[in-house]
């Protein structure tokens, strides 16, 4: 199977869906002539032209709202936010218009829009550019949230997100764009709402999404090598809809869970997962569910220090060893 980057996998998904469906367009700042600030849309403007791949002014509320309106008319706009942090200047358009218009119209309208871009810390771009709002959008009934960790998942989930008839917030990660992995040449899609056991284990469940999955896998490797602890790694892949079954099956098997989450801890995604586990698998737990989140402060700039602010393999290992 060809080995390609997470970036290329996304690019392929976008290209295939642009080819497949005339209603799909790409829009965002620097997505066309510049090939994308992070090159995810590289070559697509050349290939599909001005009509399908469109550069916008720096007006997120305006163009995201435009995309919502176009989606209500049956188009399938794929909107890039250069950073998901910029969703804070178009928060109302996403939550109230994309997220609520179907409900408020009693189901007369649906909004097949995809809003995509990176949502991660760890690149020393400072507090305002390092937000991870998956918990905010997943809190909102009417929206769907996807956070792929690998090239394979990124492509399959992006294709499903574009074909989905509801608004999808697709959250990528600038630190993963360069990661490589096997991606089949043949067409495939990955349904939203299906978690993936990225590593089987028997002693403890490490549950994560996005880049935290990669960190969890590295921790699981060392846990086995150095501590003889067999950790299972569950990748949520989509936050909403959520595959609770796969999480619960894993916990019922291992009786222990540590949640790895690049979200800030207070009401982060992992708080929902912990609440769900203790409620639905209370008697299966041999230890409290514990969490390894981003350290609870705005993202610090200082590069070496910020690296320690995100969940690290060492912090995961400490938690696991304490729990086992």
């Amino acid at each position, binding site marked *: 199977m060809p080995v390609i980057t997470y970036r290329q996998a996304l690019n392929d998904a976008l290209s295939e869906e642009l080819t497949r469906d005339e209603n799909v367009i790409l829009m965002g700042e620097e997505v066309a002539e510049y090939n994308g600030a992070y090159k995810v849309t590289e070559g697509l403007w050349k290939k599909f032209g001005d009509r399908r791949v469109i550069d916008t002014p720096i007006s997120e509320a305006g163009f995201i709202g435009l995309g919502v309106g176009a989606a209500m008319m049956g188009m399938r706009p794929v909107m890039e936010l250069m950073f998901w942090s910029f969703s804070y200047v178009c928060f109302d358009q996403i939550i109230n218009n994309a997220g609520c218009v179907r409900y408020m119209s*009693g189901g007369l309208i649906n909004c097949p829009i995809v809003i995509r871009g990176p949502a991660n810390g760890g690149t020393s771009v400072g507090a305002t550019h390092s937000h991870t709002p998956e918990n905010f959008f997943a809190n909102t009934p009417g929206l769907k949230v996807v956070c792929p960790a690998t090239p394979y998942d990124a492509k399959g989930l992006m294709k499903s997100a574009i074909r989905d008839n509801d608004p999808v917030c697709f959250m990528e990660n600038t630190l993963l764009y360069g990661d490589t992995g096997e991606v089949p040449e043949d067409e495939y899609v990955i349904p939203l709402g299906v978690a993936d056991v990225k590593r089987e284990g028997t002693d403890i469940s490490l549950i994560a999404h996005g880049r935290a999955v990669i960190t969890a896998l590295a921790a699981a490797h060392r846990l086995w090598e150095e501590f003889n602890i067999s950790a299972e790694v569950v990748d949520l892949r989509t936050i909403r809809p959520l595959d609770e079954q796969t999480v619960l099956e894993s916990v019922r098997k291992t009786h222990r869970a540590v949640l790895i989450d690049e979200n800030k801890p207070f009401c982060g995604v992992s708080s929902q997962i912990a609440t769900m586990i203790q409620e639905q698998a209370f008697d299966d737990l041999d230890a409290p569910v514990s969490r390894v989140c981003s350290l609870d402060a705005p993202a610090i700039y200082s590069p070496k220090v910020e690296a320690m602010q995100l969940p690290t393999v060492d912090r995961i290992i400490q938690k696991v060893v304490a729990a086992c």
Partner: protein
Amino acid sequence: MSVAQADKTGTDPVNFAKAPVNANLSADQKLRFLSDMLRIRRFEQSSLKLYQQGKMGGFLHLYIGQESVAVGTCSLMGPNDHAITAYRDHGHALVVGMSMNECMAELLGKSTGCSKGKGGSMHFFAPDKNYWGGHGIVAGQTPLGLGIAFALKYKGLKGCCLTYLGDGAVNQGVYHESLNLASLWDIPVVYIIENNQYSMGTSLARSSSIKSCLAERAEGYKIDWDLVNGENLYEVRAKTFEAMGRARETCRPMVLEIDTYRYYGHSVADANAKKYRKPEEIEFYKQNHDPITLWENRLKEEGIATDEIIAKIDKEAKEEVAASVQFAEDSPLPELEDIFSDIYHEVDMGTEAGRTGRHFFND
């Protein structure tokens, strides 16, 4: 540039009736406009009663006094023309052809309402009639109208989107972002500022710093604009027709500022309705600028209407309203489980995507 400045053909005050879009109107059409205005007013007058009887919740923003704007502009909509407005949305809804039944039932929160009782007064929708609501967040609809117009152009359809906002809404940034995008990309959107001079209790002078008017801000985006006397149905239609025609043919956007006035408070809950405006001011408008009275007089002058005809039309409107109240009262409320439909299309349709993973997280 102001169209008025640029070119007066067909827009010279005395000539609005002679403007092509008005000159060929049949007597029936002209009476239809009267009927539509009366239908709005009667519909809202009884909705007010129902509100006061405690049969509604939340907000009720009455359009009474502004009827000529919705009737004049929406009456120009062709098959590819669309409309979207804010929360003061009953008038436009009735003109685009929504039934009083579904609208009145929505106000009472009944499952037979246009939004199944989920949207309420601020959220009337009828996509099948090119009517996209009904939006509660001030100016939140302004980029949606842009997107609707963008889709029309993308699909190669010759149409435009009438996008309404209030005089207070112009100070939400997203409206300005929308103006720049509309002009930069040649999007066939027509922004219609319904200037009723107040945003809640705040007069235009206390909320907007302007040169000569609100529409003039369009200049900075190289967008044409015009001022419209909203009490004159002929003028509303003539100037809007021109804007819509240009949008359809050239995809150029335009901003129209239509002067109008609301008789009631900002919403029925507006405790100060008669404080920030002198009662005399309101009376003055009712006496001298009521769009319905003015149109009735006009039709009489033209020999099209008589008091009898007008009374008959009014009676029909009242009967239609009464029937809709009955319908709404007799309709059932949504069931508790209805709370969970109409959130995700995939779930509602029972598709595989809608059955995969957990979508709702009730304890």
